[in-house]
């Protein structure tokens, strides 16, 4: 059953259009992550789902009920804010139960629910404290408790982890994920951290400038990005985007790569029918760093492995791996090697290109070919 459906939603503040026709559908139990660069309209969209801001045109449905004109408190949603928005004058218990009190739940029942949630989030010892006496992580938990206790149809999170330090962020990320798996609740989660998006989401909606770029599972976005923006946004380090010419080599489409020493090599990109029309034309080749490796760490069962000697320009050791930068068609290209592969700056290395995961983009529209 479709749990949340957003149809052609536009939002304008005066003359500035912030959302330019968003269409998103998610099922009950989905974990939708909205990602995109700062200012792309993620919070705006979330506020509209919450009903905190009106939409200019379009339609938002929650469980098949149009909620365009429904007050936030009647949409059966709960929201966790970036700043947590804990009521400073109330203790943790009151904070969590305030929503229930407003809904006229009897005191005894309220107590039980709060106790239940407090136990789930392990904040029982904190119930009598004021928010100012809590650490960042504890506040975050209380904010989640306030949402959980209401048992809403949809949870909305607006960058809930961005105020935490790096370590706590990873811990809380895991906890949110566990919570989702345990409760099976529907969640819409805003972040601009693509790692958070990849790890948490069952579906990712990636936005740019008020336009939805792609909606899909994390794997879809990673492996079949709809355009160069999505390709560059997801993954770290990001996908290499190399301008190249598509040629036919033995009847198979391939891209021509010119190395630093002017020698060229042909990398076959697989036989996709859509590629035929592009032979002889310029394209953009997209290659993820982990598909450019040393010989030992290549994906052995890939049907499209190609090996070539390349000059290493720079190495960036990260511990387990080393990112090696080579030059192809005048672009810096990052490959991911094992630390033990012996890559040395200024020396040649045998590099394997795993073209099974290569994607091609139209240089004009920046959309994916095929």
């Amino acid at each position, binding site marked *: 059953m479709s749990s949340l459906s957003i149809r052609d939603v536009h939002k304008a503040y005066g003359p500035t259009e912030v959302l330019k026709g968003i269409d998103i559908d998610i099922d009950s139990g989905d974990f939708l992550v909205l990602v995109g660069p700062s200012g792309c309209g993620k919070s705006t969209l979330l506020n509209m789902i*919450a009903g905190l801001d009106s939409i200019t045109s379009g339609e938002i449905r929650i469980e098949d009920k149009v909620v365009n004109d429904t*007050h936030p408190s009647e949409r059966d949603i709960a929201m966790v804010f970036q700043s947590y*928005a804990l009521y400073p004058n109330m203790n943790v218990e009151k904070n969590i139960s305030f929503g229930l009190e407003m809904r006229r739940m009897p005191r005894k029942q309220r107590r039980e629910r709060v106790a239940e949630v407090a136990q789930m989030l392990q904040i029982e010892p904190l119930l009598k404290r004021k928010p100012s006496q809590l650490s960042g992580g504890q506040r975050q938990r209380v904010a989640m408790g306030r949402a959980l206790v209401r048992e809403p149809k949809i949870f909305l999170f607006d960058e809930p982890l961005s105020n935490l330090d790096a370590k706590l962020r990873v811990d809380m990320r895991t906890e949110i994920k566990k919570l989702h798996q345990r409760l099976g609740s529907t969640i819409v989660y805003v972040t601009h951290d693509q790692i958070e998006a990849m790890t948490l989401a069952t579906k990712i909606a990636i936005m740019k400038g008020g336009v939805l770029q792609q909606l899909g599972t994390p794997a879809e976005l990673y492996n079949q990005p709809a355009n160069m923006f999505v390709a560059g946004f997801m993954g770290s380090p990001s996908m290499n985007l190399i301008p190249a010419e598509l040629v036919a080599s033995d009847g198979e489409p391939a891209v021509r790569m010119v190395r630093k020493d002017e020698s060229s090599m042909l990398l076959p990109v697989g036989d996709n029918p859509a590629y035929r029309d592009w032979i002889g034309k310029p394209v953009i080749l997209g290659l993820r760093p982990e598909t450019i490796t040393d010989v030992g760490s290549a994906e052995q069962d890939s049907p499209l492995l190609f090996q070539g000697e390349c000059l290493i320009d720079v190495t960036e050791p990260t511990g387990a791996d080393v990112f090696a930068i080579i030059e192809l068609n005048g672009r810096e290209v990052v490959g991911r090697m094992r630390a033990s592969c012996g890559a040395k700056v200024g020396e040649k290395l045998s590099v394997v290109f795993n073209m099974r995961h290569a994607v091609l983009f139209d240089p004009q529209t920046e959309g994916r070919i095929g």
Partner: protein
Amino acid sequence: MASAVDTGVQSGRFWRVLIYVTLIVFAAFYLLPLFVMLVTSFKSLDEIRQGNMLALPLEWTIAPWISAWGSACVGLTCEGIHGYFGNSIKMVVPSVLISTLLGALNGYVLTKWRFPGHRWIFGLMLFGCFIPFQIVLIPMSQVLGLFGLAGTTAGLVLVHVTYGIGFTTLFFRNYYEAFPNELVRAAMIDGAGFFRIFWRILLPSSGPIIVVTIIWQFTNVWNDFLFGASFAAGQSAPMTVALNNLVSSSTGVKEYNVHMAAAMIAALPTLLVYILAGRYFVRGLMAGSVKG
């Protein structure tokens, strides 16, 4: 190098001493009238006539205080100032409470429930703060007459609330401007309505600014003379007006000690408010002025 540091410390100490001496001199200078009032109010008339204003009483007496409170002549009646003191209390308490509450409500609406033209409304209220009292005297007396409130304490309350609302709104607006909108939104999602959000979320977090507003309003309303003299004559006059009448209506000997005691009684409530809440006053002013 070391000697340079030394002189630095030396001159630092020198300046500090200088600053303290200056401050003490000024503090003494400003406190002198209060001191004279206090000692005079505890002296007998004879002692006052003998002379030294600054001397401590040879014989302490609280008779002037008792007389000022209960039997001194104000105008034609000789019942002391206690009735007028009561008038002032009856005037100041509702004025302060109502204007503070309305200011808080205005500040809440002007920051969290913005409507088209909110800037204009706020601008006009600010403008109201700067209208001199004298200009509104005649229109105000007409309005009071119209409402049948002329010469009553209730009328004075209305005047002070009207006049105070500009300031109280300014205080609360600036304070609530810095109050996170997300809290209001969270409460909205939790199902709280307009007044519920105000009572349960904003007002309980407004301690410092409430103190500021109460002190400000209390001092202004309590110390007001012009409105009191204009709109509430006779038995319903506030303390300030009665004090003036007391001083000017004494026939024969001027009872300086009684006057001083009465003045002290008149000043006591504001003094008390400052002592009790003064440190919140400064803190609240700072908090309100950071943003807005």
